[in-house]
């Protein structure tokens, strides 16, 4: 048993951010274990992805390049990865905790009856084992989980690890045949409707969020303006989503998205425990609220006690001026 593997998620020939972070984290684990780092690339016309994986520090690339792998279908990718893991016996298999990475690691673990820890936010090595720190109970507690025997399968949450850096490395990828023939894959991807170029909440470096204090759907206008000035994504508390002021896809919190941006600006958000569960790992939190007793101030690095309808537009103006 040897080797640290990273499954590379990609789009339009480029490695996804969450996979660059996985490569960065895996490099550290490989160094601690004294083992090689292998990137696993699956898809169709993916030689440029393999090249990029070498450039981002992979010692080796193994993969499969086939039309049947063009769409991400679990019945094709799952058995392929599981077969490779069974045959080559790596110590650790890492993926990003994106929907695809999540599903794929779950599949491999189930097919191989192996141990798997999802949603890692920190990794360490103790006694030759990978220790994965992950949030449990909706982020209200943490757990240091360890796979007790066999291959250790892990997926890592977006924005929790520094991405791998370009090394200028290159090499020859090793390509294998797909595990499942097209006619044996029951699923067909009929269409994909792109949501456009909106900044996704979980990948955003900056999030500006509005809460009950915005008062109504039009109250999100200044929030959006500030987000635009900062190139940020727009978040929302559950109360505003339940009230129908903004669509659910913006909800941050226990039954919404869990986010971890560099900067989280909470405007008119009191900071209920369910909201905190979704954003408390943000690097810098700014709270803007008329109520100085609001729980959000206990979490915040910076606070402004004041009306968001005064403070947020002033901030937009200030950032537009400075950021040009």
């Amino acid at each position, binding site marked *: 048993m040897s080797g640290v593997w990273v499954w590379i998620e990609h789009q339009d020939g480029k490695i996804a951010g969450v996979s660059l972070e996985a490569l960065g984290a895996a490099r550290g684990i490989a160094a601690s274990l004294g083992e090689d780092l292998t990137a696993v690339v699956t898809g169709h016309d993916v030689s440029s992805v393999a090249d990029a994986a070498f450039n981002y520090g992979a010692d080796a690339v193994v993969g499969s390049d086939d039309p049947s792998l063009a769409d991400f279908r*679990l*019945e094709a990718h*799952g058995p392929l990865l599981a077969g490779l893991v069974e045959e080559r016996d790596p110590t650790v298999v890492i993926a990003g905790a*994106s*929907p695809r990475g*999540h*599903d794929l690691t*779950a*599949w491999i*673990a*189930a097919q191989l009856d192996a*141990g*798997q*820890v*999802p949603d890692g936010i920190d990794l360490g090595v103790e006694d030759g084992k990978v220790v994965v720190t992950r949030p*449990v*109970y*909706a982020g*209200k*507690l943490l*757990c*240091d*989980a360890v*796979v*007790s025997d066999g291959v250790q399968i892990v997926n890592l949450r977006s924005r929790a690890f520094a991405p791998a850096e370009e090394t200028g490395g290159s090499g020859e990828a090793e390509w294998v045949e797909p595990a499942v023939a097209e006619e044996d894959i*029951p*699923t067909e991807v*009929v*269409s*994909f*409707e*792109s*949501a456009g170029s909106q900044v*996704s909440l*979980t*990948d955003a470096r*900056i999030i500006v969020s509005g809460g009950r204090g915005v008062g109504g759907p039009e109250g999100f206008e200044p929030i959006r303006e500030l987000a635009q000035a900062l190139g940020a994504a727009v978040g929302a508390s559950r109360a505003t989503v339940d009230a129908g002021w903004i669509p659910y*896809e913006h909800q941050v919190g*226990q*039954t919404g998205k869990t986010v971890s941006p*560099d*900067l989280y600006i909470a405007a008119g958000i009191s900071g209920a*425990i369910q909201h905190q569960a979704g954003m*408390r790992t943000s*690097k810098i939190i*700014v709270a803007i609220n008329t109520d*100085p007793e609001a729980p959000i*101030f206990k979490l*915040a*690095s*910076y*606070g*402004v006690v*004041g009306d968001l309808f005064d*403070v947020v537009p*002033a*901030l937009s*103006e*200030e950032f537009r001026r*400075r950021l040009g």
Partner: protein
Amino acid sequence: MKVVVCVKQTPSTTAVFSVENGSVNWEDPGGKPNVLNPWDEYAVEEAILLQEEHGGDAIALTMGPEESQEALKTCLAMGCTEAVLVGGGDFQGSDTLGTARVLAAAIRKLGDVKIAVFGKQAIDGDTGQTPVQTAVKLGWTPLTFVSAITEVDEDAGTITVERLLPGGKETVTTKLPVVISVVKEINEPRYPSFMGIRKANRATIPTWESGDLELEGAAGVEASKVDWSNVYELPPRDSEVELIEADTPEEAARILADRLFEEKVI
């Protein structure tokens, strides 16, 4: 058509947690510490909608301790036609893989199930892995992050769904039977009706134990491949809030912008 909805009883969303000697405890200020996992409400609703449209059964299934009956009663009160509890000490401490083996065995025992519906994840373990793993154990196709079931063709044995993925919406068609896990966008869960609650309270929910199932592989704490025992409370955020003192919003904005540039987060 026989539809199964796999649910879990979890701590409420308002529960406050503490950890003592490695054991997790919680209390709820509202006095209702355990609920049907909030994500599962959407799965239950979708199972009932499928039953209403296609006839047959919508069976609620859970693996858990005796008190998980309460979650199943919520499912019955909402409109599920039957409920089954899979319990007993042998399954206690199962990880997602053990749980998947047990649920797969229970679904096989129910027989002729076409669709097994799950919520996105449970708000306690928060892994979101059980639907895919149950599908693998059944040899069925998993469809995750489903935001709409657009067509179920029982005669052709096919299902078409929309999946909400980062960057867009994917439409896929596959063969029945399937395991699907649903996201919040799929529906608006109904509230239990008064009649439903009365019916649920009178219902006798069967309990299946390990002897009742043909389990492939083991479940329970011994079979778990992951040691999850090291659970602890979050370290407090070390930052003390700096309140920006200013006479005007413009001045506050200027000072705050200075700080944020100094922090290098802009």
